[in-house]
């Protein structure tokens, strides 16, 4: 085997919810920084590599940086919990989980279309006659999966509040006549397009992704409404990292905003226009929503 034995890594100590804010000073600086990247499904195209970014970051930080893409954020959350990954590019919901489980902290967020937030949309067939959210009663609802912020959590939360349901299960069975769990935003939209469902909740705007295969998608599907603002993807770090080092990472990322080449890379692969500072509070809205669902998400 060729395991380079770094003595610094693997800080498992205190992973559980012991008051973690206190022990700042003796943080660690790894010999190799590992970045985990879970691409947000709420995006038109997603990249399968993080190589250029990792390289650049390594140059700036002066240490080796390794990037790894995964599509399952359980893996990332757990890996950050074990400090196998120190920096994560995590969608809002994933961040909330990581924060709750392992005190992972958000330091930055992505800016897309000049905004640090985005919205989810309700998609219906143009000829369906559905004009308001209230018209959705008794219809079939398509969503990607229940772990998707824009595809499920936010719209579900909104509808529950608006129409007075206490649990998601009630919403699904009493308000709607049925649901289709499609596995992805594009599949949800297609379910509506194909008539398997009446409304789909997706990111904004899923239709552009489908245009190539389904040229008439823009005409056949219209947007009924948008949800409230959802915070964008985060860049988060594990609590074991040294504070000064974290600050350095932060600075490097922020400096990318001035670097046209880097912005271009980010935009091409992740649709990011810029990077901005972020704090945990901004994600409170997601936390609240998650808390509401966590226990009553019925199977």
């Amino acid at each position, binding site marked *: 085997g060729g395991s380079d034995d770094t003595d610094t890594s693997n800080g498992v100590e205190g992973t559980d919810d012991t008051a973690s804010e206190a022990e700042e000073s003796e943080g660690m600086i790894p010999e190799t920084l590992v970045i985990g990247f879970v691409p947000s499904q709420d995006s038109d195209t997603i990249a399968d590599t993080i190589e250029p970014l990792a390289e650049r970051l390594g140059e700036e930080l002066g240490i080796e940086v390794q990037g790894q893409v*995964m*599509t399952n954020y359980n*893996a*990332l959350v757990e890996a950050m919990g074990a400090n196998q990954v120190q920096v994560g590019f995590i969608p809002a919901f994933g961040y909330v989980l990581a924060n709750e489980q392992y005190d992972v902290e958000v330091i930055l967020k992505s800016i897309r279309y000049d905004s640090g937030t985005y919205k989810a949309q309700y998609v219906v067939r143009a000829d369906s006659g559905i004009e308001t959210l209230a018209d959705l009663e008794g219809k079939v609802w398509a969503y990607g999966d229940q772990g998707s912020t824009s595809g499920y959590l936010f719209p579900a939360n909104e509808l529950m509040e608006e129409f007075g349901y206490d649990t998601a299960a009630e919403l699904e069975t009493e308000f709607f006549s049925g649901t289709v769990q499609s596995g992805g935003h594009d599949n949800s939209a297609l379910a509506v397009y194909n008539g398997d469902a009446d409304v789909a909740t997706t990111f904004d705007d899923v239709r552009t*992704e489908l245009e190539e295969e389904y040229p008439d998608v823009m005409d056949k599907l219209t947007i009924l409404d948008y949800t409230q603002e959802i915070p964008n993807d985060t860049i988060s770090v594990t609590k074991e990292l040294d504070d000064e080092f974290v600050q350095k990472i932060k600075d490097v990322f922020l400096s990318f905003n001035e670097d046209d080449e880097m912005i271009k890379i980010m935009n091409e692969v992740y649709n990011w226009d810029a990077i901005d500072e972020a704090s945990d509070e901004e994600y409170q809205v997601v936390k609240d929503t998650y808390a509401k669902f966590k226990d009553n998400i019925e199977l």
Partner: protein
Amino acid sequence: MENLILPPKPKNSLFKKIKVIVITILVIALYLWTFTSIDIDWGRAIERALNNFQRVIPRLFSPDWSAAGEVALSMLETVFIAFAGSLMAALLSVPLAFLAANNMMGKYLSVIGKWILSAVRAFPDLILAILFVVAVGPNAFAGVLAIAIGSTGMLGKMFSEIIESIDMQVVEAMQANGANKIQILFYAVMPQIIPEFLSYAIYRFEVDIRASSILGIVGAGGIGTMIIFASNNRNWNEMGMILLAIIVVVTIIDFASSKIRNKIV
């Protein structure tokens, strides 16, 4: 031959008749239940297929050659992961297989062994992979470990079946020589099982190449990540390229391994 002599009717016991009838009814009921209660709109599915056929299939068959380099690299990594993983599994499963074989261990020990193997097999690959990502980080080595453990269950089961099927007469002949247990293991048992062991291990290697495609989901290396991205981006040309790579590689390995297997058996 006017008077035909007919044989007596078979006298099946009433119990047996009832058993047959009950089983038949159960099977029919099972199918009725399945087909009536399953939630599939067959007509729509077919219509959908006809619509989508044009969108997906032609693009699958025109692979995206620009991705060839990247695909090849991922595929290579997949092969390495599968190789290291299956070899590890092959070694791990040997002691478990002996434990589970009822002609080697006592009846009770072998039941325990079989349970261990079943339990190992029950764990979904993905969760194993997550566990190993946690253990050693998101890299190919986590994939190797996940493959190794995942395969151990299946290989151990197959190995133990091989051990159970050996010619025990040879074992008896060694006993009759005055050989002790360990000598019998090396002289009578091992020569009988080694070729099959190798052949199954090689077979498992092929299976693992396919199985390791799932590992990419958790960042444990290999071609899986590309599969998921190609599917999420509806990039069927790239999927075509990936498929081509898998088919070519598995076919080559299939061919080589059947040659090797013929040699050793």
